[in-house]
């Protein structure tokens, strides 16, 4: 029998969690042996993985700063994970203390940790929910008590949508959020992927290991990635390799010359 969605699942520390493995890669200690084992193993297959993760995190920072510059003061961070460092509210509230953030994740431990860190911050809410169900996210009190959807809002999907397969209708999921947003709102996505001719053996191995041990991933090429922005107009520079999205300094760019395995873009609702 399917467990009713209001009945809690088990919290199994023997099973790696996406959020904690990310934390490990980012140098955090919010993780357990199982998470570290998987994280370490992936690094063995794909040593550049840590750099990849850092780039997603850096994209988050640049995108939030960009959005703050466009006047956005409400953020809905989907698949927020473990709050390690450089979190959305830290960036946003440094710029404007009145900025509001809702973090959404389905990992109960990540959510519990976020809640405990944020218990004193009344402009931040944490929601445990499956982001693939926009209706339940958008109808939750955590979201509705804080965010005013008449105002421009940014939906952040950082390193998230590659965990949503095509069968799960990613465009429909994004559409569920988009339809609730006021015109002038934004969508920021960073996504694992590469063009068809770029897949290397180490990508394949790391991906297979990750699919098997953590959670299956769907890599999308640039065209597929761009399709996720249905109903949005991409801001400059459009959909590009992650490090190339509005770099803060030419020095930030990796000098290896190898195409980065992931895309990033920000779109504005038309």
């Amino acid at each position, binding site marked *: 029998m399917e467990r009713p969605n209001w009945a809690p699942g088990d919290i199994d520390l023997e099973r790696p969690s996406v959020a904690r493995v990310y934390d490990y890669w*980012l140098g955090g200690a919010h993780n357990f042996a199982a998470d570290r084992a998987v994280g370490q193993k992936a690094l063995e297959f794909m040593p550049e993985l840590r750099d990849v993760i*850092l780039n997603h995190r850096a994209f988050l920072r640049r995108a939030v700063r960009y959005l703050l510059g466009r006047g956005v003061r409400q953020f809905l961070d989907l698949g927020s994970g473990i709050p390690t460092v*450089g979190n959305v509210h*830290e960036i946003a509230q440094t710029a404007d203390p009145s900025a509001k953030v809702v973090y959404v994740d389905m990992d109960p431990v990540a959510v*519990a*940790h976020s809640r405990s860190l944020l218990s004193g911050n009344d402009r931040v809410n944490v929601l445990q929910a499956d982001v693939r169900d926009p209706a339940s996210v958008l109808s939750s009190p955590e979201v509705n008590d804080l965010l005013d959807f008449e105002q421009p809002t940014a939906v952040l999907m950082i390193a998230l949508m590659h965990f949503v397969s095509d069968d799960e209708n990613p465009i429909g999921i994004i559409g569920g959020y988009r339809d609730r947003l006021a015109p002038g709102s934004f969508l920021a996505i960073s996504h694992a992927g590469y063009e068809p001719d770029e897949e290397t053996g180490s990508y394949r191995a790391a991906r297979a290991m990750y699919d098997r041990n953590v959670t299956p991933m769907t890599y999308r090429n640039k065209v597929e990635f761009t399709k996720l922005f249905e109903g949005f107009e991409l801001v400059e520079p459009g959909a590009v390799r992650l490090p190339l999205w509005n770099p803060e300094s030419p020095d930030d760019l990796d000098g290896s010359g190898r195409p980065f395995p992931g895309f990033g873009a920000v779109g504005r609702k038309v």
Partner: protein
Amino acid sequence: MTERVDHRVRDDRSPLDPAVLAGAESFARSWATAVIGSSYVPMTRSEVAQHLQDLTEMLVEALFASPFRTAPGYEIGSRLVDAHFTGTDTLGRTIQLLGDDLLAELGSAGDDRLRSRLAALQGALAAGYARALRERTLAEQEAIRAAVLDARDQAEAMLRASEARFRAMFTEAAIGIGIADIEGRILDVNQALQDMLGFSVEEMRQYNVRDLMHPEDAGSVWRLYDQLIAGECDHYRAEKRFHRADGEQVWTHLTLSLVRDDHGEPQYQVAMIEDVTDRHLLQNRLRYQALHDPLTGLPNRALFLERLGRVFNNRGKHLRAGLCYLDLDGFKVINDSLGHDTGDQLLVEVGRRLDHSVSGEGKLVARMGGDEFVILVEGSTGEQDIVDVADRVLTELEAPIRIAGHELSVSASIGIVERELSGTTSADLMRDADITLYWAKADGKARWALYDPERNAREVARFTLSATMPRALERGEFYVEYQPLVRLEDSTVVGVEALVRWQHPEFGRLAPDRFIELAEETGLIVPLGRWVLHKACEEARRWLVEFGDAAPFVSVNLAVRQSRDPELVRDVKRILDECALPPHHLQLELTESAIMGTADEPLEALRALCDMGVRIAIDDFGTGYSNLAYLKHLPVHELKIAGSFMEGLRAETEEDPVDSQIVATLVQLAHALSLGVTAEGVETPAQAARLLRLGCDTGQGWFFARPGPPEDIDSLLRGDL
């Protein structure tokens, strides 16, 4: 979320001289290049550079400070961790870069005192870094474990909430719910089920599911239960009765479901039980109404037929059964003269008396409709059982019934059938009882009649004959035989009697006594008689042509119905014309009753025939009641004395004086009226001799010839015999 990183640009610019400061800036740039990417820090490259610049200045100040202290080194290590330079490569590269480049950048590469101080600061930085990282790691581990505990608490709270919800659903459900293990031990029952059955949870827990078996349970209920327990089916629904604690019964709809464990093995059973007693009672009432006669309250035709069907379906239980099919005599008269209301009350009373006189297991009184009732006796031992029942019923009905000031006497006719169940069907039983009822009516009413298979066979045969007769006439299954009428004086054949026969494809050759009466009943006698007449006239004409004056007349029997047929005279005339037969060659024979008992019209017809020249004979004279005075005026030419009077004249040696005297008197009577006399049934020479002596004119019978085909008459006339 995490410790705030100090990004502030130091405004108290250091007191270092510009050359040293420039060296420090240069070193900071190298440092940034070395460590960027070794850790994730939420800063832009320039922010990182600025941060490291501040730390470099602090380090350089410490290097030259007096008195010299290592505490700033410790502080720098700690600040690196605070800025999330937590990648371990960061420390390694930092220590190495300090040792390799710093003094050179400051232009003091050869200063041993500074080299020694730098080593001490490097050590302090490493210690500060290690300590801060250790604390941070411990804090984060602590935080994530706390988060796990929180999450578990949360999950447990939700589980408790969900359990509470399920518990509430279980407790408050309007439908009865019970849970038992796979051995059938009852584990829990909700309030609705306790109320329904009148037992408390504790009492119910004493029971096994199998204790809840009810004697009226359908076999399928427990067969399905066994299958469910064995894991062969996952749920089933059934109608089931339960005993309540107070001894009453509850009718329920039961849904039993199997709960399996994680490995798919049967673990629990869950029963959902809905009390449908009210619905059941309503259904029973509706069923009662559908199966009972509202007037008398007796079972109706539908229930009777259902019960009768069941008797035949359960043949193992009883070997025999009997039926009384009862119909009131003259009920229609009562109904019509005293009104339907009285009729209804009469039926109610009759029903009551029937019910009263017939009681006991295996007996059922039902009203079939109108004034027909039926009594079913299951497990009878013989006809006498049912006869006894019928007798009791007839006796019970003898006492007059008082209704609305009328004292009504009723009687009933009863058809009885009693037999072994094997070899018969309910439809046979009903049909035979119905037939027998009509026998009882036909036999005089106020009585019972017992089914008689032979009588039935006869009636069936009669019916078959009567039904097949019209086609038989079309197919030419009838034929005519002729028996000579012989003048006693000289043994001359003066006439022949035409006798119709039926060559039946199934029953063979049939004499007229088998079918003439039936033909009279159905009216077929008229076309049949016309056909016989035509056939006889044709033969007569043939004889006339062949034998001239020696040709015999033909004598044809005329049935009662024919004699009253208004077309008779015209038919006879037409046939005579068609056959070109002179009328005096035809004689028509009628019985006494046909002639005597009739009104004027047939008599007129006879007169017309007589006037035409046709001879009229009275057949079987002496057996009916003849008005002798009347006889004188009738248009009759011949009397045929019935064969029964010939019995006494039969013997060779002695004769019966009475018969002899009767025949003599009849002959005298005929002659007195100027009528000819024919004796029928002449079978011996003695009879022929005596009849001649008594003055009889003509004889007919086996002594002279048996009836035969027309060719036999031809032979006789030619004198071949």
